[in-house]
């Protein structure tokens, strides 16, 4: 992925937002990231959607760049993505996305302020981290990084989570209502991975339709280069039989 291109687009978005009189960070927000990392992709697309200028700092976790003394001092949990907003350090992608909207959103559509609507987004974000993305990792991390075989029991648990997602999408255009929110941006990266890996989720019809709808909605925010591109890098790690 071309860092310079993304930065130029971000700068243009940021200038446009500034011209409308919005508060924006004084310096670009640093994002420690790696292109294939799903939670990094979510944060990057959210920044694009909000016109937030990011300074991307490549952090190759496969070469231990997240375990240097400097990195651990900044983030003792040594994870990516990690954000540095003019000295304010934050990690956990879903906390970063929430912060972006809370601090810099032109409006609250990506993360509604109304308590009930917000609770729905928060429930989806917790479902994502605690259930959907967890079960995706339980199936694919051993395959991607330890060369292990496809585990049917883990696949069944992932399908169960997709079934729940399918139910949540019943009667809704997006996961938390009529509009795109950070819950969609968080969850879509897992579907992008599943698509790139050839996992069959076609039985979950609401999920299939929502995925296509969300891809289109995220197109102007770098879906193809950030998310799809990142997913394809990950797919290349899968053991080829």
């Amino acid at each position: 992925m071309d860092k310079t291109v993304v930065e130029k687009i971000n700068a243009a978005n940021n200038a446009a937002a500034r011209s409308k009189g919005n508060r924006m960070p004084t310096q670009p927000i640093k994002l420690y990231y790696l292109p294939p990392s799903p939670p990094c992709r979510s944060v990057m697309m959210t920044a694009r959607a909000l016109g937030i200028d990011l300074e991307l700092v490549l952090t190759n976790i496969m070469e231990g760049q997240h375990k240097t003394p400097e990195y651990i001092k900044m983030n003792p949990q040594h994870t990516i993505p990690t954000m540095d907003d003019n000295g304010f350090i934050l990690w956990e992608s879903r906390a970063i996305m929430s912060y972006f909207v809370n601090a810099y959103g032109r409006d609250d559509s990506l993360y509604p302020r109304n308590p009930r609507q917000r609770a729905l987004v928060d429930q989806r974000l917790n479902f994502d981290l605690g259930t959907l993305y967890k079960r995706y990792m339980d199936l694919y991390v051993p395959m991607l990084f330890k060369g292990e075989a496809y585990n049917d029991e883990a696949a069944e648990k992932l399908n169960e989570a997709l079934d729940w997602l399918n139910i949540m999408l019943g009667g809704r255009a997006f996961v938390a209502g009529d509009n795109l929110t950070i819950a969609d941006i968080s969850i879509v990266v897992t579907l992008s991975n599943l698509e790139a890996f050839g996992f069959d989720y076609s039985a979950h019809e609401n999920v299939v339709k929502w995925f296509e709808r969300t891809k289109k909605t995220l197109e102007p925010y770098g879906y193809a280069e950030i998310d799809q591109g990142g997913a394809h890098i990950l797919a290349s790690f899968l053991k080829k039989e």
Partner: protein
Amino acid sequence: MPVDLYYVPGSAPCRAVLLTARALNLNLNLKLVDLHHGEHLKPEYLKINPQHTVPTLVDDGYPIYESRAIITYLVNKYGKGSALYPEDPKARALVDQRLYFDIGTLYQRFGDYFYPQIFGGAPADKDKLAKVEDALKLLDTFLEGQKYVAGANLTVADLSIVAGVSSFEASDIDFKKYANVKRWYETVKSTAPGYQEANEKGLDAFKALVNSLLKK
């Protein structure tokens, strides 16, 4: 306007909700869910929560599940301006990061280690225990030089994490060997409003459950 909570006393996520409601002086109609007889799998429950978990909050007919979404909702709705979940974006972000650390790392690793033992009769897994210890070390680091997990004030992050960490007492995990964690635990026990009623009571129920399961 009734606020119903579907819960079981032993469940740590349910206790996090009880602690938060108590801290907000909010009355909840407590509805015990008979998990043993599959009450959570019945159509009426699936209607409010298709994932059939506890806790589920139903606020004047509006259902919410996932404990950490419930507790932030309760402050957003009934505790505007409360330090429990500050409005300032940076302060709030820190609380959020601790909550995601809880669900994605700390409480998750505890569950991964302990629940297969008590619910599945599996032997203790040393690698999984090591992961719990790593998470406790991180919590200890987060608490360095600060009274509560997200700063100087008690927040819903403390309430969520204490409900989970107190459950460790039912296991062989010695979380009190981490000095900051031990200090924080004693602090929260004495400063979280209604801690005895909201957490300790349910924790006793959890310990009793664990004892009966491990005896089999």
